[in-house]
Each structure stands twice: as structure tokens, then as C-alpha cells.
């Protein structure tokens, strides 16, 4: 056991820090929320990293991974969080790509993986349906084989950022007579295909980040099936485990704690002193920081295990629950910190609210709080994660 970085690791940290400093696009620093980002903004950093060969540190080297050790990957995450770079979207890089390089054909790997690495294609995740959320295997979208095509019909929902997507990976029922999990296939669909309609769902904070996706007699070439027909559930579950492992967001939350302290330094308590000197408030920040520390070392232990050859296991459920609770707590405290100025709402352009009052840091506090409630719902709700732990870890 040893917590220190080696000389090589320190050199690596300096290298990536310098790279981020010299290459991260300046204009992205000024964007205050995801809602204000356009497609190119989302992809800008991804594309720069794609050119450098650093967009997918977790992939096997043969497909374009960096070959970094888990410590180097940890450093990479820390440095990005520190510099507050825009997070790379997970749908291509950390969801569909691992499925493709694990279960895909050589042709699929050759076509899709480089385009994901470079940021050329934008992916979305077509899993959930109105009737199939936590009970994902209850999905009803069908893909019926006709010659060399599948004809896909159904409705997906909650599809994050599908409004920008070139491609989607969809779970479709290919055998209506099989048991729930057994008749499902994992199919890649070109979002520009005729019959695909994307409609916005507006969230509580006023933002448009999720959509309904309607599939109406969409024709999909059979070579877009990944893995075997009716064995899509294997891909789906494999992917969910990958989805969860990044979800702890430790490095970003560490940065979030620092931001919260900055905010508490700028705000005044009722007695006129800095809020960060207020006993009640500083204690809450401290407790959060301690929780985060526990999560960080839990994640490091999990990563070390993974390195030792045990894939991401049910531990990812623990990381998901604790990670999202901390992310949510951060937004609660930020909202508390700014007092009255959490109330003004300045998002929706067009209603005259395009200006800001109060300190700059205050204006996204309430919208972020409302928005972040999603984290305990998506990626398998926190109740479902606890069920998984109860069953798989505790054997109950």
C-alpha cells in the first residue's frame, strides 16, 4: 500500500497539465451551463483530444486507448476536473465503444471506433421507454427482420442529447415469444434514417437535454446488429456496468467542493463575516469533504482491483449511489450559500430574463439543484443500485 506518486507519475501530471493549459479552448471556459452549449461546443475538447490520441484512455491500446496505468488515468481525470474542462460525452466513448470492441464484428470495429475516437460521430442511448425504466427488460420496441433489414417500431424516451446525435444504440425486441431478457437485440441506428423523430422533453430547470425518440418503420441494415440476435441483454448489462463506473465523479466533485468554498468566501453570513467563517456552514462543507474522501478511497480500491484483472463489478453500484448523493449535496449547499439570490431565474431567453442580477456564481444555483435530482434517477436509480447490492453483494 502506498499513496504517493512516483517521479514518472509526477512528470506525467505535469505533461497533461501543460497540455490542458495550452490546448483547452478559451471560449469554453465562459459557458455557464450545458444549456448554452451548442453541438460544436460539446465536441470541441473531444476533437482536440482525438487528434492528440487522448480521447479514450480506458480503451484497449489496439483500438486507440492510451495504455495509461490506472494511476495515470486517475491523474488525467483529476487534471481535467481541476481545469474544469467540459466532460466528454459518455455515449460513444464509454458506452457503445466498449460494446463494439467487445462484441462487434471486425467491420463494425473498423468503421465506428475511429469515428468515436475523433469525435466525428455523436451517439445517443436508446434504452429507456415510457413503460420500461427501472424494468428495462420490459421494453417493447420491436425490430422485425425482413431480408437484409430490420424494421424497427416503438418509442424510446429520456434519450439524452439525441437532438444532436448522428447514431443511436437501441435495445429492441427481436423475439416477442422469448422470456423477457432473452428476445432483445442491440442495434445501431443512423439517427438520420427516415422514420426517426426526436422531440424535446423540457426539464425542471427549463433545459432541453432529454428527448422522446419515435421509431416508425425505420429500416436498419442487419449488419448494424451488434453481437448475436436475441443476445442484446448481455451487451446491455455489460454497458450498464461501464456506465456506472464513471458515474462517481470524484475528481469533479473535489473541484466542486473548492468552488463551494470560494462561494462561501465571497458570501457574507448574517453577522457580516464571511460565510466560510460561519460555524454551521463550514461544518457542512467539512462533512461533505469527508464523505467525498471516503468515496475517493473506495473508488481507488475498486480501481486497483479492476487493475488486478477483476472487471468493474457490483462495486460500481456503491460508487454510483455515493457519488450522486455527493453531487446533489454540493448543489444543495451552493443554493443555501447564496441566500436570496438563488431565486432569480435567468435561463429562458425571450422572456426578458436574459440579464443577471446578484453575483454571477448565484444564478445557476437553483437550476443546478433541480437539474441534479436526475442523478439519483438515471443510470439505474439509487433504489435499484441498492437492490443490486442487496442481492449481489449481501446475498439477500
Amino acid at each position, binding site marked *: 500500500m502506498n499513496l504517493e506518486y512516483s517521479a514518472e507519475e509526477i512528470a506525467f501530471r505535469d505533461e497533461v497539465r501543460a497540455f490542458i493549459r495550452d490546448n483547452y479552448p478559451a471560449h469554453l471556459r465562459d459557458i455557464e451551463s450545458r444549456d448554452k452549449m451548442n453541438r460544436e461546443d460539446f465536441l470541441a475538447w473531444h476533437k482536440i483530444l482525438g487528434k492528440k490520441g487522448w480521447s479514450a484512455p480506458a480503451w484497449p491500446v489496439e483500438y486507440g486507448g492510451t495504455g495509461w496505468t490506472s494511476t495515470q488515468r486517475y491523474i488525467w481525470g483529476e487534471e481535467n476536473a481541476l481545469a474544469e474542462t467540459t466532460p466528454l460525452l459518455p455515449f460513444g466513448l464509454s458506452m457503445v465503444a466498449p460494446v463494439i470492441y467487445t462484441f462487434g464484428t471486425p467491420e463494425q470495429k473498423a468503421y465506428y471506433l475511429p469515428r468515436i475516437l475523433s469525435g466525428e460521430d455523436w451517439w445517443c442511448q436508446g434504452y*429507456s421507454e415510457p*413503460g420500461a*425504466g*427501472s*424494468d428495462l427488460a*420490459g421494453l417493447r420496441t420491436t425490430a422485425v427482420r425482413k431480408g437484409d433489414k430490420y424494421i424497427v417500431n416503438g418509442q424510446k*424516451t*429520456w434519450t439524452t442529447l439525441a437532438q444532436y446525435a448522428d447514431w443511436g444504440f437501441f435495445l429492441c425486441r427481436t423475439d416477442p415469444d422469448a422470456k423477457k431478457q432473452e428476445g432483445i437485440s442491440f442495434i445501431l441506428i443512423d439517427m438520420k434514417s427516415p422514420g426517426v423523430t426526436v422531440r424535446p*422533453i*423540457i*426539464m*425542471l*430547470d*427549463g433545459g432541453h437535454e*432529454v428527448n422522446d425518440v419515435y421509431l416508425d418503420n425505420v429500416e436498419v441494415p442487419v449488419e448494424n446488429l451488434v453481437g448475436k440476435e436475441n443476445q442484446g441483454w448481455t451487451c446491455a448489462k455489460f454497458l450498464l456496468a461501464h456506465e456506472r463506473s464513471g458515474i462517481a465523479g470524484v475528481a469533479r466533485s473535489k473541484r466542486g467542493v473548492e468552488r463551494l468554498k470560494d462561494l462561501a468566501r465571497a*458570501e*457574507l*453570513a*448574517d*453577522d*457580516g463575516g464571511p460565510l466560510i467563517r*460561519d460555524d*454551521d*456552514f463550514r461544518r457542512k462543507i467539512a462533512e461533505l469533504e469527508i464523505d467525498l474522501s471516503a468515496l475517493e478511497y473506495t473508488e481507488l480500491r475498486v480501481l486497483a482491483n479492476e487493475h488486478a484483472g477483476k472487471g468493474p463489478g457490483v462495486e460500481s453500484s456503491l460508487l454510483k449511489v455515493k457519488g450522486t448523493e455527493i453531487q446533489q449535496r454540493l448543489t*444543495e449547499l451552493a*443554493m*443555501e450559500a447564496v*441566500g*436570496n*439570490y*438563488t*431565486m*432569480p*431565474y*435567468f435561463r429562458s431567453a425571450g*422572456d*426578458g*430574463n436574459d*440579464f443577471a*442580477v*446578484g453575483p454571477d456564481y448565484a444564478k445557476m444555483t*437553483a*437550476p443546478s*439543484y*433541480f*437539474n441534479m*435530482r*436526475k442523478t*439519483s*434517477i*438515471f443510470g439505474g*436509480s*439509487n*433504489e435499484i443500485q*441498492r437492490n443490486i447490492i442487496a442481492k449481489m453483494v449481501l446475498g439477500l
Partner: protein
Amino acid sequence: MDFNFTDEQTMLRDSIAKFVAAEYDFDKRKAILKSADGWSKKAWATFAELGLMAAPLPEEYGGLGGGPVDTLVIMEEFGKGLVVEPWLQTVVIGGGFLKHAGSEAQKQEHIAAIASGERIVAFAYAEPKGRYNLSDVSTTAKKDGAGYVINGHKAVVIGAPQADHLIVTARTAGGQRDAKGVSAFIVAKNAKGVTTRDYATIDGFRASEVYFENVSVGADALIGAADGALPLVEKVVDEAIAGLCAEAVGTFRLMHSLTLEYARQRKQFGVAIGSFQVLQHRMVDMFMATEQSISMAYMATLKLDESDTERAKAVSAAKVQIGKSGRFIGQAAVQIHGGMGVTEEMRVGHYFKRATMIDAQFGNVDHHVKKFTNLSMPQAA
């Protein structure tokens, strides 16, 4: 001991509920919020017709002579309907200042106008750096002949865009946070030197930043004693907080019932999600938090006329209960709704937003725990 409502109060409740169902349902409210002004003059006129403005105001000035329990009934129904019109600001706060401390002339001029629905009042007290401290006032009112000249910036003044008059706290003596030296004024919003910057709040209200630049007012603008308004401000704010607690209770009841309804009807894994024990317990906890909040809202309302200390303790205690319960109930309600809970199209999220913002108004949980602690366990004792 009696926790029953009078027949009149029950009728008042029913008439508001009926109004909300007919004129202020989810879609109609949405249209009101989307309109340029963001509130409904028609609803305001109906409130006046129903006697809501007059209800807690004194009879000799056109009121109906009711009291805090009427306010509780009205605010709870407003919470259920998520009503955004500035009734609390106008009637409870504006009316409160005037009825407790207004001069005869001020009462004659303003209370009748409030009771009839003609006058809308907003309360300009918070300042950009003042947080929740009511004595933190750096807006100044300097003596000028017989009157005063006001200068300063008031933050997040709810209802100011609709208001024609403002009640303003300003410092007439002492240092920025001194208890002594605070005075209250009633100022016409169209007075020379008053400017506003209007906006919506995240829970659908309208508010303004209000700027006073050399605003001259006469001596007759002063409400109560010069330099000594803080106890009055505290009393009226406590009455407003009791109203907010009742409003919060309305939102809690709705969040709880909407969630129960959803959990009964939403099926996953072939069963209603309400059959999962972990969700059942969460809904039970929501129920218990709602009941405790109702109790505290009643308690605060019934103690408004006690001594300053008793009143303040009761109100702070209620605000703490409401703040904590609001967070728990709101988060649980959204969580149990799953993805639907975080969308604009579901009612539950709108209650969640309002309940959350109530904690941010007139002091959050931390503020009132501190206040309660100091009242309950004074340092000197």
C-alpha cells in the same frame, strides 16, 4: 384547546379551492406564468371579490376583521394552487405594517385600498449583501427638512413588478447592522428616483431589484417610530413566515398525494411501484413530515400574538421544520416519480420548486436554528 376551523374559514377554504380548480389549474397557471406580466389581474380581482384581501384586515378600514388563522387557510390553499399573485406581500406584510403601526391617515389611505384589491404592496427589505439579517440595512433615509431622502438597493423584492407601493426599510441612524436606527417607510413605486429591474423567479413569481436614488418622501411616509422599526419589522416578518409555512404545507400535501397517486398507478416489473417496501417507507416518512409540518404551521400561527420572544421562537421553530421537511418531501416526491419527476410537464416538480424556494425566503433552516438557539438558550443565562 381547539384546532377546528370556523364555518366561515371552511367556506373561505372551499371558495379558494373552487377557484383554483376552475381558474388556476396546471395549464391555466402555466399560461399566466408565460404571459408578459407573469400574473393574473383577473385572479387578483377574484381574490378581492372573494374577500381574501379584506379577510385579515381591520373592519374599521374596510376589512373583515379576521386574523392569522384566516391567513393560514388562504396561504395553504394558495400553496396547493401554486398561486403566484403577491397576496402575502400586499395583505399580510403591507397590511400588517399599516395595521400594527400606521398612522390614522395611513390606515385610511392604504388599508381600504388593499382590502378592495386596488392597492398592491411589495416589501423591499433584503439587500444584496445582507443575507437574512433584518437589521442589516445600508439603504439610508436622511432627514431633509420635514421629510427624508432615501438611497439604496433592495434585492429580490417579490411582487415589486406588480406593486404600486413599496414598504422600505432604511437606516435613519446607527451603523449598518445596528438594531437601532432602522425605520420603515411606505413609498409610491412611481416616486421620482425609484427604478426597478424586473424578472421572474425560478418558482414562477415576479420580483425586482429596486434602486432608490435620492427619493424624497414626506414625514407622512414613515410607518411607526423613526429609528425604532426593527421590532415592528420582526413582527410582520414573523407573520409573513407563518403564512409561508401554511403555503408550504399546501405544497407538501400536494406532493404527497400526487406521489401516492403516481406510485399506485405506475407499474414496473409487473407491479405498481407503490408495492416496493422501500418506497412505501419513504412515502410514510413524507406523510409524517407533512403532519409534523402542519402542526408547526398551526403552532406558529396561534402564537403570533404572544410576546416577542415566544412568537419568534415559535415562528423560527416552524420555519426549521418546514425547511427540512420541504427538502425531504420534495426530493422524495421527485425520486419516486423517476424521470417524470424532473420534467416540466409533471405537476410535482412545480411544487418541489416552490417548496424549495420557501426555505430561501425570510431565512433558511440554518438561520432559524441559530435564532431559535439564541432565544431558547440565551448566552448570558
